[in-house]
């Protein structure tokens, strides 16, 4: 079930455009933020709202790297390894993230808390190496900074016993 506030947001977004279909990607992204991924229910609801067939929504989802059709961790760790970050040690940082979380690229920890993804340029080149956890930027990363951050996030989670 999608929340009332999200459905209200849907209405507001659709009203912005001369063509309802234009709202498709924003609707999918905001729904994903709430549900955790783009579920079948989300696809059906968005299709109904923007007046297209569900297959047309699926077609669009496949194009965008931020839209996930399967659940990802509560904290989606996205490490940039593009050139500006690479030159500042992003490959080493990414390798460290794999070790720290015990997972590889595009995997999720068994407790469902963290996902790890190597991503392309985030637009934080002057603060390289950089990453995003969900929508939050973290810049000038080091293995130590990363560890401290992960521990802090774990502490917030009652279900994590690590």
């Amino acid at each position: 079930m999608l929340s009332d506030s999200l459905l209200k947001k849907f209405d507001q977004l659709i009203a912005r455009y001369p063509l309802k279909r234009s709202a498709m990607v924003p609707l999918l992204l905001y729904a994903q933020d709430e549900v955790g991924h783009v579920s079948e229910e989300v696809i059906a609801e968005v299709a109904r709202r923007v007046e297209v067939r569900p297959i047309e929504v699926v077609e669009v989802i496949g194009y965008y790297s931020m839209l996930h059709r399967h659940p990802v961790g509560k904290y989606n760790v996205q490490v940039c390894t593009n050139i500006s970050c690479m030159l500042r040690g992003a490959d080493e940082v990414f390798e460290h993230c794999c070790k720290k979380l015990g997972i590889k690229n595009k995997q999720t920890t068994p407790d469902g808390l963290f996902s790890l993804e190597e991503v392309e340029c985030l637009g934080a080149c002057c603060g390289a190496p950089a990453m995003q956890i969900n929508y939050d930027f973290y810049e000038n990363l080091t293995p130590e900074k990363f560890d401290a951050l992960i521990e802090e996030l774990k502490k917030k989670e009652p279900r994590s016993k690590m």
Partner: protein
Amino acid sequence: MPGYHSPMGNSPLEVKVISKRFGLPNSSSLDVFVQHDGYQALKKALAVKPEDVINEVKNSGLRGRGGAGFNTGMKWSFVPKQSAKPKYVVCNADESEPGTCKDRPLMEYDPHQLIEGIVIAGYAIQSHQGFIYVRGEYRYLLDIVDKALAEAYAAGFLGKNIQGSGFDFDLCTHTGAGAYECGEETALLNSLEGLRGYPRIKPPFPAVVGLYGGPTVVNNVETLSNVPHILLNGADWYSKLGSPKNGGTRLFCLSGHIARPGVYELPMGFPLRRIIEEVGGGVLGGKKLKAVIPGGSSCPVLTADEIDVNMDYDSVAKAGSMLGSGGVVVLDEDTCMVKLAGRIMRFYAHESCGWCIPCREGTSWLKHLFDRFHGGAALANDPDTALDVSMNILGKTLCPLGDAAAMPTISILKKFRHEFEEHIKLGYCPYEKTVVMSEK
């Protein structure tokens, strides 16, 4: 520690026009904006004829800051005066060119400057609706820009009968969801229409057939942020800030092996050597310079011997590269150019939309070739093969993504051929001194 603090440089050599309000407390608010010349240019524009606005921008020499460098006023003048379909202004805030992070501070610290520029553009082409297409990763900027839009509506700088002029203009944000390709203007328009972000065949150009089939101007955030200053201080003042035919200033994003990375606003035509040595404090750790990417990953690299170039569109083009997006990436003497070429190609292979075969196949082949090459399994004819594939992408695709993949690759293959030869001779990377097999 979530860092909502875009890195800003601070150099006495800067000439601050579009970044002049950046340091002010609460600079994104309407109050601060209005206290510092905000919306004065809009009032001035609304008092003259739309074609006068276009001419002023044309004469200022303002050129597109997204990368292509086309004269902005000229682009506006291509929009037909009469149109059966509504006209649109679309602000391209899908900043994703590797090495570029300048639109981010413009929206974070001065969203009203951008809004003012968009409304002026709307008035100039007599459009009544605009969209700001923000890349999905910049979610926090949506909040900042949306707040500014609400303030502008409440104060009568947007909506019906703006400042009693009789001119109506509506503006809202739109979020992308992760696709470099959508920075290309026709792909962006498809994306905004709720389709996959494939590029369109040109002509017709968006100025004639754009969003929803109506005449559309698509301009970059930095381009539009310059517009109020041109209206306020005049085309002559603006053009004199830069070098001939390259008006104004430019935000340069200094990254990579540089002592002081950051976004710096410098006059158009500022020498690249001085950007690296004086503005950026030289190569990180006092190392020697090997090469520079002057304007984002799509540009051909310049070697250390080629940095005596003035950073304006024409001079950099003359030097065999492009001013591009303003992303200056500095590479020190210990950088493996084969690894760099491979990483650049991995990006383009990931981002190729797959519409044009030379780009879709070529970028993937090259990615595999470079990965294998850097991983120690280089073949003697690989550099020639890579050059051949690159030359068969160049100029053979609908949008510039193919060219963007081919151009840096060709320059690295030609200017750093000796590094490729060395990999072949040794059987491993001379910089990493070990056989590195990539899993990617």
